[in-house]
């Protein structure tokens, strides 16, 4: 087990390295000169040089990268160009919001997706299968933010079951937290649950045709045992392999859905950062998101290893 974790962790190192290089190098691709952005049109040549020096832009690029990386590893992502707020602080303040949304929607997507996929696979071409397939096809075509708008119109504006906007931290009131994240999470999780349902169905249909399922039936094991122990264990292997991708999609989707519900998360921060060309903030956002994705990847890798003995280190 420990060996598995260490091995997967090592495999993720090159990924982190390349992301950091990509993230850093896009600063030099930006069309506008950050110094100009800061000092504005009225700045003098002298001011220009001072700011340039302060930002460390006179050093060679690889040195700047190493310094930046060194600070980033210590949790210092620099400070915003515009209000000098620490990037790490700004990101960390919004992170729980986006994280709540992503986690809740992932839970919804997995539970609905796996249940629907298994139900459909057990009786191909039955009404359950048709219903699930049609539902999944629709689910993948609906833009999550539009679905959010509709949910707000129905459940918040008309029925007043849930708040239409805003976010209550979990630490403040778990019940209010749940009420505030439930609509956005449904809006966000639906299309992922559709994607997961399709994957589970096709994996399950494939597994049910395998020799070992026939052999288990020949052994007279009960249908329920064959489905949930022998088939599902193997069918989840390919699903888990792409689960971290689905969660990445959810994280991205959260940035947009936040806008519908006027939730002040990483999405709002990111949009503001683009508008103002706030490089350190954008860099920090990307790095933190990749960090999250890497953690999710590590978790799914470990689950993958537990489900699939062939993937374990010998």
């Amino acid at each position, binding site marked *: 087990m420990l060996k598995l974790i260490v*091995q997967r962790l*090592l*495999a993720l190192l*090159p990924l982190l390295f390349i992301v950091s290089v990509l993230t850093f190098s896009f600063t030099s691709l930006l069309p506008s000169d950050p110094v100009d952005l800061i000092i504005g049109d009225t700045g003098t040549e002298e001011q220009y040089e001072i700011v340039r020096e302060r930002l460390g832009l006179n050093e060679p690029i690889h040195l700047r990268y190493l310094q930046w990386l060194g600070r980033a590893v210590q949790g210092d992502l620099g400070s915003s160009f515009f209000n000098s707020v620490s990037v790490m602080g700004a990101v960390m303040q919004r992170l729980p919001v986006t994280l709540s949304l992503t986690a809740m929607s992932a839970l919804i997507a997995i539970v609905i997706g796996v249940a629907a996929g298994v139900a459909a696979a057990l009786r191909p071409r039955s009404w359950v299968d048709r219903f699930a397939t049609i539902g999944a096809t629709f689910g993948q075509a609906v833009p999550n933010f539009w679905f959010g708008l509709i949910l707000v119109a129905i459940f918040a504006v008309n029925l007043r079951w849930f708040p239409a906007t805003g976010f209550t931290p979990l630490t403040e009131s778990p019940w209010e937290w749940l009420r505030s994240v439930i609509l956005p999470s449904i809006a966000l999780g639906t299309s992922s649950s559709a994607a997961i349902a399709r994957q589970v169905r096709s994996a399950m249909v494939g597994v049910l045709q395998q020799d070992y399922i026939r052999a288990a039936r020949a052994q007279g094991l009960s249908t329920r045992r064959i489905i949930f122990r022998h088939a599902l264990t193997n069918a989840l292997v390919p699903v888990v392999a792409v689960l971290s991708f689905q969660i990445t999609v959810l994280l991205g989707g959260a940035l947009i859905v936040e806008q519908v519900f006027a939730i002040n998360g990483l999405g709002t921060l990111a949009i503001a950062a683009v508008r103002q060309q706030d490089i350190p903030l954008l860099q920090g956002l990307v790095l933190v998101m990749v960090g999250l994705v890497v953690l999710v990847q590590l978790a799914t890798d470990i689950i993958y290893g537990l489900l699939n003995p062939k993937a374990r280190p010998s």
Partner: protein
Amino acid sequence: MTDNPLLEITDLQVTYSGRSLFGFGGKQFHAVKGATLSIRAGETLGLVGESGSGKSSIANAVLGLVKASSGSIRFGDVELASLKTRYPPAIRSQIQAVFQDPYSSLNPSMTVEAIVTEPLRVHTSMDRAERRARAVELLKLVSLSEEHLDRHPHQFSGGQRQRIAIASALALQPKLIVLDEPVSALDVSTQNQIINLLYERRAEFGIAYLMIAHDLALVHHISDRIAVMYLGHVVEEGPSDRVYHAPAHPYTRALLDAVPLLDPQAQRQRRTARKSAPASDAPRLSVSGCPYQNRCPHVMSRCRSEMPPAYAIDGGGTASCFLHATETCDTVRTAKDKESVVS
């Protein structure tokens, strides 16, 4: 037949490297550990062994599909193993192949005409009409006809697909065709049709075959000589009849004895006789000495430390087994010595 071999393989080694975490380095797997073989023009060499014996690796090395890690493969006057690049067209057109699985060896998106004439497009300047005419000729050679030209592979049975593969291999009139288990995926009743077809075309065009198979009896029908491989080593080699009827290496004998006889009474007798042989559960790989030592009923202390050289056998050929060691010829023979023994 000339005395100079058409294909001469000397001390061939083929090694595959596994991939490690970062894609470089990793474990090595020695598929062929020093094989020496030769085929003369128009001759058929049957190469027999079980899975993992390295027989397909030899085929792939001859075809230039894998690199030899050491040793030599001479085709006529050309040394193939040391070629840095792909085979030059002059060589390429001389060595063709038919593979085992007729369901995957034909490109599903191409028509029979495209498959059969692909070698002509690559190596000749024939125009479309000429190629089509040649394709019809080639199909006739394998008992198919013009009407089949525009169909796709999935419309044919396994035996018919193998005929198409043979037609394509014959297109350039090669000197050598490597047959990698050409009939093992076919039904018994169609196997012999393909064997007969191969035999007739050989007589007609004087092609040499390197025929890879796991079934000694099958190979025996069509081969002039047979070589038997075990765990990357050629353990026995010799004229087809001698190897089949008087196997000299204990492994060759085990291989022959393992195939049940078609006569149930004789098979019952043989079964009672063999009961004492040790099981194959023993670890197959050994660090030094004879590769067969762990399964051999005749194993001696010497087999555990020394690799037996190829000893000449009465009736032709060689066997790498100390059972055949004599005081006079207890030396490692080179390929040249072997030839002199055989001829």
